């Protein structure tokens, strides 16, 4: 079923909307949550919460890209759960890309003091827009979709060193970019 039809089902408050969403995007959502949480029961719970989030927000929301919309809900929920689990060290498994990016940035610059959340998102969009296509893909696969380096090698048909090198350089670019905007921003 086309995404626009699924959105119509949500607007009509038809429960078939959830069945269709699960049929079309269920594996994708579960896959994304599993990459963050490394835990099947928590991931399945996040998947279910994603459908609920969709149900509660459409309407009034009418997403232009339903696929991106639902993945964003799933990602947010999985990250919240990840933070909850790790706040009390309830689990020793780490989500490497999540920690890699946050540790990297937070060690370098205190962006909170200088930029609002919206400003940071705008900056991230600008940063991604200016990245070469290949670098953007590798960066997003690692830090948005949480793929391992090995999976990125297979996905992009690149050597390990190439993937790691590209990630290293893009992280450095992001650090410089955010620092620059923090120092010279409003």
């Amino acid at each position, binding site marked *: 079923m086309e995404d626009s039809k699924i959105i119509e089902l949500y607007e009509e408050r038809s429960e078939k909307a959830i069945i269709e969403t699960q049929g079309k995007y269920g594996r994708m959502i579960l896959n994304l949550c599993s990459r963050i949480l490394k835990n099947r029961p928590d991931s399945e719970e996040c998947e279910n919460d994603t459908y609920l989030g969709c149900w509660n927000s459409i309407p009034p929301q009418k997403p232009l890209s339903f696929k991106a919309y639902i993945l964003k809900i799933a990602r947010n929920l999985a990250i919240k759960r990840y933070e909850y689990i790790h706040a009390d060290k309830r689990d020793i498994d780490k989500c490497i890309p999540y920690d890699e990016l946050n540790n990297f940035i937070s060690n370098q610059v205190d962006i*909170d003091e200088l930029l609002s959340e919206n400003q940071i998102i705008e900056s991230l969009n600008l940063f991604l827009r200016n990245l070469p296509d290949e670098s953007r893909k590798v960066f997003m696969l690692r830090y948005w979709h949480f793929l391992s380096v090995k999976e990125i090698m297979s996905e992009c048909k690149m050597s390990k060193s190439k993937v790691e090198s590209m990630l290293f350089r893009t992280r450095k670019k992001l650090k410089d970019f955010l620092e620059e905007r923090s120092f010279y921003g409003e």
Partner: protein
Amino acid sequence: MESNIAKLLTEVDDIYVTETIPQKICDEVYQRRNLHAFSKIAVASLAIILSLLIGMANPVWAQNLPFIGKIFEFIQEKIDFSGIYSYYATEIGEATISNGVKITLSECYCDGLNLYIAYEIVSDKPFEEYTEKDYMKKQIDYSANLYISFEGKKIALDDTGVSGLEGEFVNKNTFIGVETLSLNGKAFPEKFDLNILINNIQLLLPYPDNEFEIHGTWEFEIPMESNTEDCQVLDVELEVEKHSIDRVVISPIMITVYSSYPDIYSGTVDYDLVAFSDIWEGNAAIQGIYDATSGITRIPRYRVKSQLELYVIDSSTIDAIGIERYSRKEISEHAILYTKIDLQ
């Protein structure tokens, strides 16, 4: 605010999310392949391949191809140091403009001993308008301050004996080429900044004019990472009469042989290390840097399939007609030292 980059990344524009969804996951979701869609992809792919092939064969078409990020792919089979750079290199895409000339560092790869950089040089004015003289079409030289910096140290880079960039003019305004830099056989640090300050680029003219210089200031500072995991280090440590082959480092692009010898020749004149391989006719070595008691010899990786034979000779005993003219048998008869290396 508890901002956190990984979390905030969730909210970036939809396009960046959907365009990067891993294909593997898409395949899992859409298990039933749509034949119509597949044939459309096949037709589109064929069109892209055809346009690239035509572009490579036809310079008029080629001038419209986007080279940034794909220079190695375009040129790697055409240069002396051929190799599969594109598989290992990462895109940089940093550009600087000065005096109507834009220089872009397109891609790079550091194998731990050598740093390979792909450049694009685009001039507002066609290159042939700078000089009426016939300049070299496969090379552009430049004058630059090249060094790496790390942990507060600076080390100058060596251009490995090749003058400037090896490549080609893809149209009247654009040259693409490759530069190989090294630390004279020393290893690159794991992480470093590459610093390049170019003062002029030079169209190479026949002697005695030598070159035509286009002046400007093109400066780059690029964070780099050395990747040695695709390299193999073989400690040979074979010695005969104080001549030794110490080590061989095999990277995807280059084989580097480290050797030592007694300081009996007062320099490098009479020492030679000759390399024969299972697929290359004649001496496979392309470069060597030899000081009084030690040296390195470079062999392009593509010239060796799985077996490399190294001969150390005192060329004063053999060199009457030029070492390249001697057969493997003749070289072996004069060898002070010989070893065979099996590449995995």
